[in-house]
């Protein structure tokens, strides 16, 4: 257990370092641009607002929040303190709603949609890839081109095609939103039913997108692994094929787990765009409305939240990986 602790501590340290860097980037990037950031923000903000007292209030809020007259370092401390208090300021486009409130209502939709979808897509993709590598012949000839084609499909393209076929033409599912348009989120059966009926289309479009790339990766990993010496040796020894294949796929699987940790950021990016196509009330749609409303505080908060989500997911996968790969044990005990 001691070795695992070392591994996990190592990963935890890395997680903290990345987290700090992400926060710094979120702070620095917008300020690297030429010109006075708050003036630019104010210009954008006031362009979208009609109420004069609202403009005044946002301005006061901002001078206070950013403390623009203070040196950069103090501004940063202020920024970090605000984040830890969960205070992201007040939204420009949905004034006077606090940003934290908007993010809070959107984040669960995204988490409940994307993570199950990515995991399911990953599982199906790996199974198909492994089967393609093992069965070869006809199965491989079908799965491979289809996977290549699907993995090249832009995330939004897949979402639109599913939407047009199943929602617009066949009318099996609603075209947009995360729940019935006549509903206010609550815990009635009717509301839950509308949530369920809105779920499958965005879910499957994300699943389909993640399948292709994973299948291709798993196929080449498995082909490589099937030709390694230990497999040939085991065949000579007369060990049953079934048993060998079990080992082969376990070994081929491990890089795929790391692959998932590394590519989860990209996948989330694609899924965010898919959300927009369905006007799913998650973070992707929030970004779009924030961009359209020139809502700087909202964008800054949403990007930070997405980064944190991805970091936590990566960390979790790393931890799981440490438990399933026996070589980690060996590497750490050296």
């Amino acid at each position, binding site marked *: 257990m001691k070795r695992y602790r070392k591994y996990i501590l190592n990963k935890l340290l890395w997680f903290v370092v990345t987290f700090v860097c992400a926060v710094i980037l979120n702070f620095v990037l917008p300020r690297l641009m030429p010109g006075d950031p708050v003036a630019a923000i104010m210009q954008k903000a006031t362009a979208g607002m009609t109420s004069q007292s609202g403009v005044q209030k946002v301005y006061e809020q901002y001078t206070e929040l950013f403390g623009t007259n203070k040196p950069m370092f103090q501004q940063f401390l202020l920024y970090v303190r605000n984040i830890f208090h969960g205070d992201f300021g007040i939204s420009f486009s949905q004034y006077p709603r606090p940003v934290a409130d908007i993010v809070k209502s959107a984040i669960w939709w995204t988490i409940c949609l994307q993570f199950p979808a990515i995991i399911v897509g990953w599982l199906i993709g790996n199974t198909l890839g492994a089967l393609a590598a093992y069965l070869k012949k006809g199965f491989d000839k079908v799965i491979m081109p289809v996977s290549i084609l699907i993995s090249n499909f*832009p995330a*939004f393209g897949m979402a639109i095609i599913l939407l047009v076929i199943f929602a617009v033409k066949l009318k099996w599912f609603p075209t947009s939103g995360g729940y019935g348009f006549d509903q206010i989120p609550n815990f009635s059966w009717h509301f839950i039913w509308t949530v369920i009926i809105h779920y499958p289309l965005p879910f499957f479009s994300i699943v389909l997108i993640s399948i292709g790339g994973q299948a291709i990766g798993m196929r080449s990993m498995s082909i490589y692994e099937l030709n390694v010496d230990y497999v040939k040796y085991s065949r000579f020894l007369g060990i049953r094929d079934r048993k060998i294949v079990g080992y082969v796929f376990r070994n081929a699987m491990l890089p795929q787990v790391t692959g998932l940790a590394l590519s989860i950021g990209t996948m989330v990016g694609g899924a965010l*765009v898919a959300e927009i196509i369905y006007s799913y009330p998650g973070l992707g749609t929030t970004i779009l409305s924030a961009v*359209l409303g020139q809502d700087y505080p909202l964008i800054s908060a949403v990007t930070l939240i997405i980064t944190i989500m991805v970091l936590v997911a990566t960390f979790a996968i790393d931890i799981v990986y440490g438990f399933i790969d026996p070589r980690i044990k060996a590497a750490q005990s050296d």
Partner: protein
Amino acid sequence: MKHTIQQVFHSPKFVVGFSIFMAILLTVLVYPLLVPGDPLEIIGQGTFFPPGVYVNVYDTLRSPRYTLMLDEATANRIASKLSREDRLAMKDYLVAAGIPALEIDPSNTVKLLDQWVNTYDPDTELAGMTFAKVRYYQRLDASLEGLLSLEGISIAKIDPETGALKETSAISQADFVNINEVANVRVLPLGTENFGRDVLKELVKATGVSLKIGLVAGLVATFIGLTLGLLAGYIGGIVDDIIMFFTNLFTVIPGIVLLILISFSIGQDKRGAVTIAVVIGFTSWVWTARAVRAQVVSLRNRDHVNLSKLSGHSIAHIILTDILPYIASYVVMAFILQISLGILTEASLSILGLGPRTTEVPTLGLMMNWAMIYQAQILGKWWAYMPVIVTIALVSFSMNLMNTGLDQVFNPALRE
């Protein structure tokens, strides 16, 4: 070198991908020469004109007329005004209005129209009918007027002095014009989009711009990735640690987040296509850097590199002559992938509303963005978004096919 290229062109996958890509590239280059004009010119007043041949009505009336006696003309005319759905909807209305269902035959046009004219009354409201349905029946009723009449139509001019209408000519139902003799005919193979622009023309231009964006993004990403990968892999030590720290950092921090932050900060007015391309390049070098580093690390201690070191060659010389040629194939493959990734990223970014500014050039992503904002997908205006999706998919499919082909040539283990 010549041998390698020959080998590459023997790979069927590469050849297919290459042909698709070349076909797209040729279209982008040749089509504007064949159909000149500003791709962003707004020609349609109104949104989403369906694809087809547009014939000027005014010119048609003034073109020479030919009489063709075609038996199916009347049937075609009725069919174009009265579809199967319309007939069934009429039946529904008649049934709701109290006529027994057995007496209604939707396929018998004369009888159906007769029953319709006698029964339909725009002012009576039937129970349970939505407003949209009421309006639908009103439109249907208006379009049915005079459907079965056999007379022609008069064309009249207003007399400028008296203000009275004066018939100048009459058109019978058997009159035809030859489309070659009509002065103004415009083919819109993919209709128009929400602003009233010719979709095909815009699409060709947008594909060109998107390819350029992909190319610039790919070049930037490959250059940064290659440089960092070479430095980290060859020099090693503290340089390696620092570079790998940043590489790992940017692997976990999602690229889309950086893109959103940077492009939002640049601001709508300063976001040109090239700026976006460079930004995309700056956020997607990570994979190239990782891969190049891994390759260089395995090359670093090969005999020929050590020999070169002993001969006193400079680091630059060693990297250029002893290392680069070995990873060149890999870098080319990564470059191809970066191009297609750049095109996809631009599209995603544009859908988020953070693409290049809209006034100068179209890009594939911007076309998608507009189609989505105008809800083309829900209105069933497939020509506004489907060609764009297909183009993006084809471009990236061809690139990936080329890549797989190259992979099989350079990595014999992957060959079947």
